């Protein structure tokens, strides 16, 4: 029994970080109806940001969070103007292909520069032991930071003027324009924010596991599952969806072979799409 509980707790801790990754994806979709297929690359960018800042600048891994957040935001702004801006208002397939192409270019450049060798950031943090089981300190801190970032995002979206502008544009872009909100600026800001969240989640994931240039694909896939669980365009739901996914992973593995985890996850994905296409955690649109 202890093993099952330990597995669930660990699943929830890691799942919350998946939730953070999905928050970036779902924020962008919610505001501008764009499926950002550079999401995986941006998660990897956060991982490499952490590696470079710790290895070459000598920063403490967690002190790298603000520069990764700001750097991610600036990269997001650039990406918006390169691959998304001209696709706004066009069929979703256009932005899908555009971001897909940019993603391929980024992966190609990355492979040429770094190859697909493994990178590891050593983080020493005492864990919490419970009987024979240990919850690594990195997992606990990543979950705590995720909760703090999610709270900050909530406050930003609901208590600040730029946040309210983002929500207004997400709700009705034409109406937002009519009341004088500079929608293009808001869209680029929201895209930058979504990418910044992806980068920070990548940074936190890199404190947990080694990574390669190609690690983003797996986390992007998880982000899609989490987004569907939480409800498309719903950042708070994404966090809940991530935790739910971690819970499922933790709950399933003690009882069946771990190779079945993916099957269960995607079966859940399909079931949610059929039964509750708006997402399990869609109580109120953010």
């Amino acid at each position: 029994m202890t093993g099952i509980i330990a597995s669930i707790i660990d699943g929830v801790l890691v799942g919350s970080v998946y939730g953070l990754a999905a928050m970036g994806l779902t924020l962008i979709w919610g505001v501008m109806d764009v499926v950002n297929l550079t999401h995986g690359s941006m998660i990897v960018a956060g991982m490499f940001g952490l590696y470079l800042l710790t290895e070459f600048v000598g920063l403490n891994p967690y002190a790298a969070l603000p520069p990764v957040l700001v750097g991610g935001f600036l990269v997001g702004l650039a990406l918006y103007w390169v691959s998304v801006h001209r696709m706004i208002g066009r069929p979703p397939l256009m932005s899908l292909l555009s971001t897909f192409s940019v993603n391929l270019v980024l992966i190609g450049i990355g492979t040429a520069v770094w190859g697909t060798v493994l990178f590891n950031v050593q983080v020493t943090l005492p864990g919490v032991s419970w009987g024979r089981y240990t919850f690594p300190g990195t997992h606990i801190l990543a979950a705590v930071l995720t909760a703090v970032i999610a709270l900050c995002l909530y406050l930003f979206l609901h208590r600040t003027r730029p946040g309210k502008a983002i929500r207004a544009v997400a709700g009705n872009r034409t109406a937002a324009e009519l009341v004088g909100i500079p929608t293009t600026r808001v869209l680029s800001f929201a895209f930058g924010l979504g990418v910044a969240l992806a980068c920070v989640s990548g940074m936190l994931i890199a404190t947990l596991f080694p990574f390669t240039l190609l690690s983003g694909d797996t986390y992007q896939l998880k982000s899609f599952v989490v987004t569907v669980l939480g409800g498309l365009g719903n950042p708070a739901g994404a966090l809940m969806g991530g935790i739910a996914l971690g819970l499922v992973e933790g709950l399933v593995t003690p009882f069946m072979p771990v190779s079945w985890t993916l099957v269960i996850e995607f079966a859940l994905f399909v079931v949610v799409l059929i039964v509750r296409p708006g997402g399990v955690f869609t109580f109120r649109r953010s």
Partner: protein
Amino acid sequence: MKTIFWLATVVAALAAPAYADDENTITIGMTLSQTGSLNVDSLAQQRGAELWRDQVNGAGGIKAGGKQYKVRFVTYDDQSQGGRVQQLYTRLIVQDNAQFLFGPYSSGLVATAAVISEQYGKLMLITGGAEPKTYELGNKYLFQAITAGDHYLTNAVDALHAKNPHAKVALVYSDDPFSKAVAGATKDQAQEAGLSIVLDESYAPTTTDFGPVINKIISAQADSFLGGGHYPDGATLARQLYDQKANLKWESILVAPGDEKFAALGPAALGVTTGSQWEIQVAFKPQFGPTADEFAKAFKDKFNAEADYYAASGFTGGALLQHAIEQAGSIDPDKVAEALNGMDVTTFFGHVKFSTDPKSHGLQIAHDMVLAQWQEGKDGKLGRQVVWPKAAQSADLIYPMH
């Protein structure tokens, strides 16, 4: 008219071989995983083969039948995907007129490429595909230069049994052909040795979080770990086993610890063992070609990197083909295949002999692996030491590992 001329020019350019034929040049074709998940090990294997090619050409070429042949490689990026391999090997044979082939990296890609090489009767040397099943399909031109997958963890089982005859083993492996072949054989060997398997699980090759698996290992009260898969998953496993304090006395992980970059894991790498096709500490007296030290030095000089077993096997594939051509006195594929069938030689890589039994033709039957363990040197740096078999030891086996 102008349009037709340009069209004809383009068609002719596409249809022509990428390299002009030259009767004093041997063209060897291969695909490499220059991109994708197999990039790291494939790159090392490629560099080993390139070093062989440059040394051969520097010495004037391969001597056969009164001629000297220079060696030329034609390569394509298979993107680590089996789906591209058949198309590219067909191109190598049909369009680039490759006379011989080197296999791609990894068992899955080799199995796919072998269909094409056999179909066209092209001889293919394999230096990075250990799964034995491919050699049980009646292939005639396929030759495996490395120890087959079912012996990858044999030394680990022997050494573990010597240290703890009652070890409780968690066998956890990637759900891919190579890892499953290793795990199946390891399970039999471990049970035969009297070790108990307390957990037998496979995981998806794309797994990035092994937390749930490690909790199962702890719940099963295992004290030893055997398994893994390829590079990223093996390294992640080692890191998480350390972070989650799985309290194991023994870890043998496939493939990943064979790479120099495994040292980046720091304390998580310490004590981890791996089956290795070659380590520089094991000195064989070669019948031809360089010694281990000569090879390692030449590799370091050329690529500014330490030679690992992937590089050594890549070089050896070329050296074996060269020896077979020289023995055959011809570049006729049937004569070269005949020379390989009769080959029983020792190089710096070890003893090499191919099965001539029709049921397992081309399978490697003489080469032995060693067990290497990551240990801290006197300078505080992490490095691999050969710890098993005892006759090849460069350092004592550390048990328990932590």
